[in-house]
């Protein structure tokens, strides 16, 4: 319970202290309920040890833009399957929701499958408005960056063994 509060506050602080989306004055311009859900109950917030050889870390975005996402995947070496994922995001509600969705969708999938996850699918799932499509793009980039990092690590480890 305590951890969840801390998590929520971190995300709230990370979102630049923006007012909770549920307080939007007019319901017609509010966040989609899925976005609110992911914002209030984000899945898989946390960190893996980035030096762990089974972990791929994708870090995308720029603080100056107000959007930074870190997505980490834990891959089972034998099967090439993503067994677990964690994310941390600094950004708006849509960015947090997009990366939370991404962290859910990569679990249990092969790496070839997760690089095929498209920003359009994430945006559709969250009913993101046009101005927030960039958040879903960033989430797609984070997935690809995590895979790229994992594969680069494997190459480096393989070379070290030679």
């Amino acid at each position, binding site marked *: 319970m305590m951890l969840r509060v801390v998590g929520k506050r971190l995300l709230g602080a990370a979102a630049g202290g923006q007012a909770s989306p549920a307080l939007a004055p007019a319901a017609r311009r509010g966040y989609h309920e899925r976005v609110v859900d992911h914002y209030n109950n984000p899945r898989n917030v946390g960190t893996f040890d980035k030096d762990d050889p089974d972990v791929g870390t*994708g*870090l*995308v*975005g*720029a*603080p*100056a*833009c107000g959007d*930074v996402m870190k997505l980490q995947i834990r891959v089972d070496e034998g099967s090439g399957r993503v067994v677990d994922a964690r994310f941390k995001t600094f950004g708006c509600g849509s960015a947090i929701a997009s990366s939370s969705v991404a962290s859910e969708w990569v679990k249990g999938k092969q790496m070839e499958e997760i690089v095929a996850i498209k*920003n*359009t699918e994430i*945006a559709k799932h969250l009913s993101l408005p*046009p*101005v927030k*499509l*960039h958040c*879903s*793009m960033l989430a797609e*980039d984070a997935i*690809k*960056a995590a895979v*790229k990092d994992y594969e680069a690590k494997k190459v480096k480890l393989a070379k070290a063994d030679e």
Partner: protein
Amino acid sequence: MASRKLLLGLTAGRRLRSRTRQLFSAANLLEATTSPSLPAAAATAQPSGGSPAALLFSPRTISSTRQAAQSAGDAPGPSTVDHKLIMPEDEFHKLADEIIHDLLGKLEEYGDSIQMDGFDIDYGNQVLTLRLGDLGTYVLNKQTPNRQIWLSSPVSGPSRFDWDAATNVWIYRRTGANLVQLLEKEIGELCGTPVELS
């Protein structure tokens, strides 16, 4: 005898490499005429070897023409590039505002001429919003920290355009798309009537 030849070969190689480096910085200086910040950037530029570290530390406009050959686009890592080196903020605003206002004017005329249901164009807080009824909504805005123009399209989704000093246009590096041409193509097809935006 053989060893002397080998030595000469080595030094020749080194001379060639340093010549390419000189050519590289000469090319940077040519681009400098379009932006006052580039001479300073050129002085600190390192030859872009294509490695991630080089991409992170070399100013983007210098590597922009080279990046066309590489996969590139926005660098995936969080940006450690100092975007102030790409162009000064006031120059960015001048270039970006110019294109956005130009598009605004032309799209307004287009809207008047085609008389489409649900066509609405709005420019507020430096964000251009083009509604095409049920066909979708375009949003075009400046992303000043990145020196980019961001577009959200109902057809092609999100894209981010950088100023290409070599050709004086806004380019989405991932696809090579030209902002104006992309809008012309998509809007023309969506609305069924060609539009001239250049």
